[in-house]
């Protein structure tokens, strides 16, 4: 490496180290006032503790449901967007991307208005006479799932879109010319060829869902504790550094695990 190149890299690297790398590593081995092994032993306790396991289980389960919903809704949207032309296609694409620029707090906040005790959905159920006493919707797994789906659907759409857009529409026609119906052509040509995009979408959504804070905080409350809200509570309410660090470790392992799996899937896809 030439000296010039090193000088260009150094300032950025220094910031990266100070603002990210060093604290992240230090957090695992040296929380303030704790033994260096405290985090690991706490981690060991957590993954055998029923209460903690329930939180981990809820986080993973909701994450998987949200991932399935985001891919299941996002892929058809991406497909239709990629195959549609003209003004409407452009507007719908912009509408799908726009939420990525918008604050999560603003986006999630809408569900409070919709699902709350005096919210629109409850009012709708009462008004239509379906029920006199609308069920509790806020602070349920359903609320968290809806909120997270809203949050991560744009990400899923973009990831799928870039993959689907690269599939030559001529292939649809070719499959249909060979006798496949529209549905068959979709499942046997478009979906497999967009495979890598779907894997990327699923990975991003899952990693985002299991680490999101705003949504479980606003829509799940204390009755739907997830890893992120639990971590915050350890760090700022009970100030239990080892527990907070151990929770952070669990979250990180989840994210790295799914990223690793997806990279593996990508590599297998590339060699197959």
């Amino acid at each position, binding site marked *: 490496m030439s000296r010039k190149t*090193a000088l260009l890299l150094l300032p950025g690297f220094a910031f990266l180290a100070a603002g990210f790398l060093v604290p992240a590593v230090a957090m695992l081995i040296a929380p303030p006032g704790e033994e260096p092994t405290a985090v690991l032993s706490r981690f060991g306790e957590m993954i055998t503790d029923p209460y903690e396991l329930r939180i981990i289980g809820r986080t993973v389960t909701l994450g998987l449901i949200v991932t399935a919903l985001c891919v299941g809704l996002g892929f058809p949207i991406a497909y239709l967007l990629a195959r549609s032309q003209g003004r409407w296609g452009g507007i719908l*694409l912009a509408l799908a991307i*726009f939420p990525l620029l918008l604050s999560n707090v603003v986006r999630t*906040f809408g569900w409070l208005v919709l699902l709350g005790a005096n919210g629109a959905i409850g009012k709708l159920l009462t008004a239509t006479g379906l029920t006199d006493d609308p069920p509790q919707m806020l602070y349920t797994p359903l609320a968290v799932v809806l909120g997270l789906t809203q949050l991560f659907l744009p990400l899923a759409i973009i990831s799928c879109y870039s993959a689907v857009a690269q599939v030559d529409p001529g292939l649809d026609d070719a499959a249909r010319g060979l006798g496949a119906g529209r549905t068959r052509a979709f499942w046997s040509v478009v979906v497999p060829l967009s495979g890598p995009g779907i894997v990327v979408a699923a990975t991003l959504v899952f990693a985002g869902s299991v680490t999101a804070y705003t949504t479980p905080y606003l829509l799940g409350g204390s009755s739907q504790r997830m890893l992120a809200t639990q971590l915050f509570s350890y760090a700022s309410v009970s100030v239990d550094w080892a527990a907070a660090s151990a929770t952070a470790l669990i979250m990180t392992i989840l994210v790295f695990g799914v990223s690793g799996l997806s990279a593996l899937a990508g590599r297998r896809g590339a060699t197959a």
Partner: protein
Amino acid sequence: MRARPVAASLAVLGYIIMIVPILFVVVTAFSAGRTLRFPPQGFSLTWFEAAVTYDPFMESLVSSLYLAAGATVLALLLGVPATIAIHRGKIPGKGLIEGLFLSPLIVPELVVGLALYQQLMIGLGLDNLSTLLLGHTALLLPYAVRVTGASLALADPAVEEAARGLGAGPVRAFLTVTLPLLRPGLFSAALLGFVTSFNNVPLSLLLQDREFRTLPVTMLDYVQQSYNPRIAAMATLILAATVVVAVIAERTVGFARIFGGINQ
């Protein structure tokens, strides 16, 4: 779309989930009533006034704007030279170095926030503004490196050589040729960086202080205490500002190009 009923129905459901809650925020903000309920009682702009005259919102808004601007500028000043080194320099382990600069993207932001809070603020006694600036800069470095890197990868390296051959020194060639070519990438990176920092909750969450708070976290706390349309009005104002940013983005470099940069 008529011919694809299943896909079309799923798409409609998806758009409803993405868009409808946002519309309800807007509707509620124009309420004349005292609580967040539906349908809103009457029409008024009272709560907008209540939002813009509410000191905690306005103070944290200013703080968030400063923080976002500072972190964006810092991330570009540090990230662009690094990108140039990665793409144009002869370095071993190019992929590894780029991966290092992109690594803040894969570690959960809440985890990074905890690390900074625990190690820098509690451990080293650093003030929260410096910690926030440091953390947000590290968070935005991947955007600076990746988005400007995508621009740089598209630019023909021979263009810089041509400038050198015509008599421009390395610095001059960079300023008159490379930098103008990077402009769309720099703009995209700045815009994405600014928005990302401004909207951030997980990283900033633990790094709050009575003196310096960020707007999204202040709004989260507000919901916990009071349940009235002031928060909806503030959210609507943020929405309006985001629409303006989006229109600027679309008119200048285009949405697709901006998000093409992060989503690789």
